[in-house]
């Protein structure tokens, strides 16, 4: 699952990605005419709305794409960088940038484009923006109060507006479409343009808008990837899984003899796990199983996984989910964790008239329990769960 950095693409190679992304960015900006200051400023005087058209189309395209990838489960939206909200600095900083835009005729990205093709005013703007950054750094104490005020964290606009992401997606796309229509009218009036759009362009534009809404509807009606996974699990839940079900005694002997070749996975809640868990068990709550950090356990071929819970149904769900998430060899413990505890930690010696078989079972469990205890004690340090370092993706300017 994406984003590919840092799990699939290393942070070093990420710099090459940056270069490639930048080439695409710079090429499109220049092709769109953003290296021309007159074209950019036209936005503010109504004679050329190229900026709005390019900007809004790009934003809507990327937004719909992000929504779609998220819904399909190929992009983990919880991992991507969301610009944090600092209300005051966003408003004041934005207002200063607006003045800079109208006086300087560029924004940082476009000035770099302009400078790249030899525009001296673009170069002057880049130089100026360096001075501005320096002024901010030197004068930071003056700005600090505004800079840090009203820190809301990475809030999403749809949350603020009290709507779902997809509803906001529809809303923004509709706003963009209306803005395109209105700005065309303004452009025509300011430039004294009487022409109307040729028919093939009208068809092209309407199909593009239609396509955007079609994708949005698709996102709205297809179930998201966790619920699709759940549906698949429920479909097969009634199946007979007795072939992969393992009794507690078998698991206990695996632990004693082969602890290094197995993973014992507790799919219950962390609280239940804390209260009691099997020796060497790791806690992967059922709803966290798709987290990327667990793929190295669920998707490997070196160790066999044993799933258990308190309710047998939950253990089965964990087993089935693991089957969809990876290709490891998986088994289910028949007994619940409390039964396992009773069998091995709260052993009751059999009555004196018990059968030979009962006596043997007792002896086996007693030995297994002692061995497991010794193993846990001996391997305490090496089997403590390693806390996975989660790297937060950085972004912004």
């Amino acid at each position, binding site marked *: 699952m994406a984003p590919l950095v840092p799990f699939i693409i290393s942070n070093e190679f990420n710099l090459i990605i940056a270069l490639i992304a*930048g080439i695409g*960015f710079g090429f499109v900006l220049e092709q769109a005419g953003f290296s021309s200051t007159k074209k950019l400023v036209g936005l503010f005087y109504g004679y050329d709305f190229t900026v709005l058209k390019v900007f809004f189309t790009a934003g809507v395209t990327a*937004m719909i794409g992000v929504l779609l990838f998220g819904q399909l489960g190929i992009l983990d939206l919880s991992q991507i960088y969301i610009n944090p909200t*600092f209300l005051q600095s966003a408003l004041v900083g934005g207002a200063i940038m607006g003045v800079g835009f109208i006086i300087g005729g560029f924004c940082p990205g476009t000035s770099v484009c302009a400078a790249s093709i*030899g525009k001296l005013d673009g170069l002057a703007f880049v130089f100026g923006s360096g001075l*501005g950054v320096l002024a901010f*750094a030197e004068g930071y104490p003056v700005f600090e109060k505004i800079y840090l005020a009203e820190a809301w964290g990475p809030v999403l606009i749809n949350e603020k507006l009290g709507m779902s992401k997809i509803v906001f997606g529809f809303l923004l796309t509709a706003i963009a479409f209306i803005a395109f229509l209105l700005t065309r009218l303004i452009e025509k009036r300011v430039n004294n343009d009487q022409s109307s759009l040729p028919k093939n362009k009208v068809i092209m534009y309407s199909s593009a808008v239609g396509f955007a809404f079609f994708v949005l509807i698709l996102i709205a009606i297809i179930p998201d990837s966790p619920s699709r996974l759940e549906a698949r699990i429920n479909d097969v839940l009634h199946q007979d899984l007795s072939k992969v079900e393992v009794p507690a005694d078998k698991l206990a002997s695996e632990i004693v003899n082969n602890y290094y070749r197995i993973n014992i996975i507790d799919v219950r809640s962390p609280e239940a796990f804390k209260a009691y868990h099997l020796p060497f068990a790791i806690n992967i709550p059922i709803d966290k199983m798709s987290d990327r950090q667990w793929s190295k356990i669920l998707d490997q071929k070196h160790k066999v996984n044993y799933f258990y819970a308190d309710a047998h149904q939950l253990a089965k769900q964990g087993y089935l989910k693991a089957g969809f998430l990876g290709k490891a060899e998986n088994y289910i413990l028949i007994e619940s964790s409390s039964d396992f505890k009773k069998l091995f930690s709260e052993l009751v010696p059999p009555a004196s008239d018990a059968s030979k078989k009962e006596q043997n079972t007792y002896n086996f469990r007693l030995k297994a329990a002692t061995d497991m205890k010794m193993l846990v004690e001996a391997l305490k340090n090496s089997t403590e769960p390693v806390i996975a370092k989660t790297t937060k993706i950085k972004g*912004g300017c």
Partner: protein
Amino acid sequence: MKTQKYMNPYLAGFLLGLVLLGTIYVTGRGLGASGAVKSVVLSSVVSVAPEHSANTPFIKTYNEEHPDGPLNDWLVFEVIGVIIGAFFSGVISNRVGIKLERGPNITNQTRIIAAIIGGALFGLGSQLGRGCTSGAALSGMAVMSFGGIITMLAIFGSGYAFAYFFRKLWLK
């Protein structure tokens, strides 16, 4: 050879959206620009005036958080890409050449001074607002960041509010 026309804005926007989407898909972050300027400027200050930098809290913090300097900064590499991409685009559309664009009623000198002042304001504002039109506004819109969209509205709102006062720079 004649200078070629600019690309259809909606097509350019769609392509830009795909570049942004691809960047988010691969790296989990959006595009940017002003951050690269920041990286280069602050790193230069650190190497030119190390003592002064150590006494300036903002630069000190930045330097501690970015010990590898501009050569290991994502945005610096991205902006190097922007330069290459824009130059390439300029070459194939025959738009490369030393030029200065200005409004009809001002001198070249005024234009350069205005560009420097505008750049300085944009540079300062982008630090305060934690990103510019690319990093905050465009990338913020793609991921539905409230802060990014507020910054965008503030940039364009203020541009319109002040356009009247600076019309002499641009109009007849």
